[in-house]
């Protein structure tokens, strides 16, 4: 059953140095508040999994939290590069990081397979791509019925998944709405999960906008819930606040420069209170 904790306590309890962590949210509902808490607590040697690393992993990488990044598209969407990711890969600053890259289709299937408790995902993928030559976790199997050669990738099974969502109720059930990404899959694939939410309501099924097939993750499938209002900014929460596209553009200049980045982290993360 999900425990209600402060964000500080949830991260302190469940994110260990060296852990494999997936922070998901496909453009939408990216758990920035939780990511900042991970930076504040100085977690180290994390293996970070995420389809679209986005600014959140750029910040974690620049702050030195990551040892390895597993991803499928590492850019600032619509803007350009993730300069901290590039600086780490190209120059080893602030440390060398290892990367393992997939396609979106493969990673989405790998999250699905993780949620489904399987060791592998099978897809019609990577045909003619050179990604298999640089990622030894991409293999091929022959279909026992048709003989067709299909790609196989290991399922994603993080130690901890962290996602942001709109609402929890008092029983710890969580509603995700709008672009649901692989949020549910990431939670179910993980050994433990932390969900940050905009607000806590009494009972999700009694809410006026309740829908019988809504994407609701039951409280007994979640380790901890922490309230983090505006916890997805500069990403957004459908029904709560829009994406701060301006900040995404401004990030380009901040992240290009090591000093500007460090100063930004100091001012906006290290010396900011968090929601604890």
């Amino acid at each position, binding site marked *: 059953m999900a425990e209600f904790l402060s964000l500080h306590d949830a991260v302190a309890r469940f994110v260990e140095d060296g852990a494999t962590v997936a922070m998901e949210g*496909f*453009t*939408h509902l990216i758990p920035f508040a939780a990511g900042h808490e991970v930076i504040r607590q100085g977690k180290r040697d994390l293996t970070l999994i995420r*389809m*679209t690393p986005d600014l959140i992993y750029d910040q974690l990488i620049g702050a030195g939290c990551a040892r390895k990044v597993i*991803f*499928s*598209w*590492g*850019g600032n*969407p*619509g*803007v350009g*590069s*993730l300069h901290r*990711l*590039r600086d780490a*890969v*190209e120059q080893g600053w602030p440390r060398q990081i290892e990367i393992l*890259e*997939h*396609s*979106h*289709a*493969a990673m*989405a*299937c790998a*999250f*699905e397979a993780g949620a489904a408790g399987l060791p592998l995902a099978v*897809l*019609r*993928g*990577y*045909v*003619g*791509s*050179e*990604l298999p030559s*640089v990622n030894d976790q991409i293999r091929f199997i022959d279909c026992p019925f048709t003989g*067709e050669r299909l790609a196989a990738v290991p399922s994603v099974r993080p130690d901890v998944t962290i996602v942001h969502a709109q609402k929890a109720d008092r029983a710890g059930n969580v509603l995700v709405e*709008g*672009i*649901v*990404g*692989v949020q*549910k*899959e990431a939670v179910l694939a993980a050994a433990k999960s932390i969900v940050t939410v905009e607000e806590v309501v009494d009972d999700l099924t009694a809410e006026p906008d309740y829908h019988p097939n809504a*994407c609701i993750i039951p409280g007994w499938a979640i380790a901890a819930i922490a309230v983090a209002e505006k916890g997805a900014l500069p990403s*957004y929460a*459908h029904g709560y606040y*829009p*994406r*701060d*596209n*301006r900040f*995404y*553009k401004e990030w380009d200049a901040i992240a290009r420069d090591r000093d500007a980045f460090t100063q930004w982290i100091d001012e906006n993360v290290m010396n900011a209170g968090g929601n604890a």
Partner: protein
Amino acid sequence: MSLDYSSAEMMTVTAARALENGMTCFVGIGLPSEAANLARLTHAPDVVLIYESGTLQTRPQVLPLSIGDGELAESALTTVAVQEMFRYWLQGGHIDVGFLGTAQIDRYANLNTTLIGDYREPKVRLPGGGGAPEIATNAGEVFITLKHSRRAFVKDVDFVTTLGFGRDGKGRDGVPNIGKGPTRVITDLCVMKPDPETRELVVVSLHPGVSREDVSDATGWEIRFADELEHTPEPSARELEILRELKERTARAHSGQ
């Protein structure tokens, strides 16, 4: 009467015209998204736009900055999980056209969005494959749009992130359940199509005011021209008006926040 328009506008309008009404189109962010939405707002009101964020049949009023802006979900018929998007809708065979951009493209229309230089010691690290590797093979066909330059149009890409026709042009031969691949490449200078035999890209149409030399100078290999080289029709006043309004609405929306 000649209209005043930029080469970027020429590219977008030409790319938009490639989409037919009623087609299902898996849309990449940036130039493809701009062209696809222009098509929807002009000659193809029932083109079905699908973004990898899970937004099915979406009709944004402003262009999304990211592949998953709220605008996309709010104007969609419905929004599904990302794994479902790739499994059921793309791999399941429901996409007529995948519309892609790229950083590098070679003569066989292979795309590189991974890196410049060597994989283990990259000179420039690019964002990576994203949805492209499977869009390019699982969609019925692929349209590609990008600005023409020697940096982008190289003889051989540094890395084949996404299959065009392979390093020898035969990358799709004999592969079961694979789409036709890139059927046209639209730039700010011209339109290219693969040679039906060799699969090498051939210029089939030059944009107004563009010479063969302009294209050759901007291409990193000895580009061939079709025997019956066409002239791309100019944008219409209506297309330009709608495109400019769209871009203005978009700029307003993105700077407001």
